[in-house]
């Protein structure tokens, strides 16, 4: 699914990024670094009337404070859109990302074990094999002298295939999963009725998959969720579907974006690419630096009750965006914050969030990102943008990354 067919915001073009911002405007992700820097100097917490009222903090301190404050900010919905879902706290529609304490802690503990560092490490050979299969196909185009789209032909397939394998879902449904993700994360400012219909379709698909697992039990993540117990009881089917929705949606566009942004950086910074090829031992710090600078995820909260936040009169049910990438670029927190230093050894970035909602899949995302970049530069040590920045299409919405990334690869 590409994004250039995403309709322009129903609210019209943005007039001023400090008072009328819209992260659903295609301009936002394209110029994100510039916009955040401008806002940091002007008004650290911007406000817009769009989406029923939305706040945008851009400093590390503000993002951190809101992430830690589960009293004044609820997670019951984490995707800003024209519809405030009627999912209720503390569970929300896709636990535990949409859950608040105290339920959050219980829900999260259920799903942490399959995503722990040691469990995820077992997937490395599978991820590497998948990356190489994709690269074999890409190489055919390279040898034919054709431009290849690193986002479409490579990056986007990695997370969707890995999570489908983990869930035990039909691998041939990967286009459908990307469509679901597009509906949820990118079609945020379309007509509310279309959004509701999309959610109903997704729900029906997940219910059918759960039924299939009930009829044919197997040892995968779906089976794990169907059998795991909360307070001595198995989870209701709707909650299993909610967990799966989260795992499916949260891991796909995000990791695809991180891989794409990292490859975009290397395509546009030949010195870094050459250095990484020459000194592969830098891969660890390079990946963390790409995560800092190109952190793909901006989370959101709803204001839980009217209160004053550092002089801002926040009203219940207004949205608050949590742009972790903006926090990661705050010069108050990082030396040379605006420079990409692939050998940066001290890097306390917040790409995977802060506080109790730290990205559940962070170990999996890191694994996929590292292996995807390692294998790509090993196979293609020299590549550049094929049509300059004009050929690059950035995503729209809370997940930021290139959706089209045409590159020209030096012959291999």
């Amino acid at each position, binding site marked *: 699914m590409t994004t250039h067919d995403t309709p322009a915001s129903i609210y019209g073009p943005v007039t001023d990024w400090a008072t009328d911002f819209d992260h659903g405007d295609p301009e936002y992700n394209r110029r994100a670094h510039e916009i955040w820097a401008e806002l940091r100097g002007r008004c650290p917490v911007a406000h817009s009337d769009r989406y029923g009222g939305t706040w945008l903090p851009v400093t590390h301190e503000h993002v951190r404070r809101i992430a830690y404050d589960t009293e004044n900010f609820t997670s019951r919905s984490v995707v800003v859109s024209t519809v405030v879902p009627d999912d209720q706290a503390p569970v929300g529609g896709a636990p535990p990302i949409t859950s608040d304490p105290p339920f959050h802690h219980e829900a999260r503990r259920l799903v942490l*074990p399959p995503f*722990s560092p040691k469990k995820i490490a077992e997937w490395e050979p599978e991820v590497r094999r998948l990356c190489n299969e994709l690269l074999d196909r890409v190489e055919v185009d390279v040898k034919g002298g054709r431009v290849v789209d690193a986002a479409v032909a490579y990056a986007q397939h990695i997370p969707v295939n890995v999570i489908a394998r983990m869930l035990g879902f039909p691998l041939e449904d990967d286009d459908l999963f990307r469509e679901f993700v597009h509906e949820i994360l990118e079609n945020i400012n379309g007509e509310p009725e279309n959004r509701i219909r999309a959610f109903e379709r997704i729900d029906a698909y997940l219910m059918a998959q759960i039924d299939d697992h009930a009829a044919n039990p197997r040892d995968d993540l779906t089976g794990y969720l169907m059998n795991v117990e909360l307070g001595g009881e198995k989870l209701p089917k709707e909650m299993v579907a909610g967990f799966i929705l989260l795992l499916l949606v949260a891991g796909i566009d995000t990791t695809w974006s991180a891989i794409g942004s990292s490859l975009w950086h290397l395509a546009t910074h030949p010195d870094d690419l050459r250095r990484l090829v020459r000194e592969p031992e830098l891969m*660890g710090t390079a990946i963390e630096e790409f995560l800092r600078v190109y952190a793909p995820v901006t989370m959101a909260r709803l204001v839980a009750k009217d209160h004053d936040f550092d002089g801002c009169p926040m009203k219940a049910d207004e949205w608050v965006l949590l742009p972790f990438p903006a926090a990661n670029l705050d010069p108050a927190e990082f030396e040379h914050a605006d420079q990409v230093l692939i050998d940066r050894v001290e890097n306390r970035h917040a790409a995977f969030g802060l506080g109790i909602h730290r990205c559940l899949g962070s170990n999996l995302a890191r694994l996929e990102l590292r292996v995807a970049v390692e294998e790509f530069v090993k196979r293609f040590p020299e590549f550049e943008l094929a049509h300059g920045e004009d050929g690059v299409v950035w995503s729209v919405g809370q997940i930021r990354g290139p959706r089209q990334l045409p590159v020209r690869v030096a012959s291999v």
Partner: protein
Amino acid sequence: MRIHVDSEKCQGHNRCYAIAPDLFDVDDYGNAIVIGDGSVPAELEEKARLALANCPEFAITISE
């Protein structure tokens, strides 16, 4: 030198375990624990400082 992980602050980012697996381990939930009593051999002191400097939640402290 001795390291300490505040289990209330740790959210399982896994940076310390990746940087210094000789000093930190992770439990089944992915949260960090110090190995042994947290004493740091001289040759791992730099690793301990790096683990502290990379923890997004400021959960690691070092006492000399």
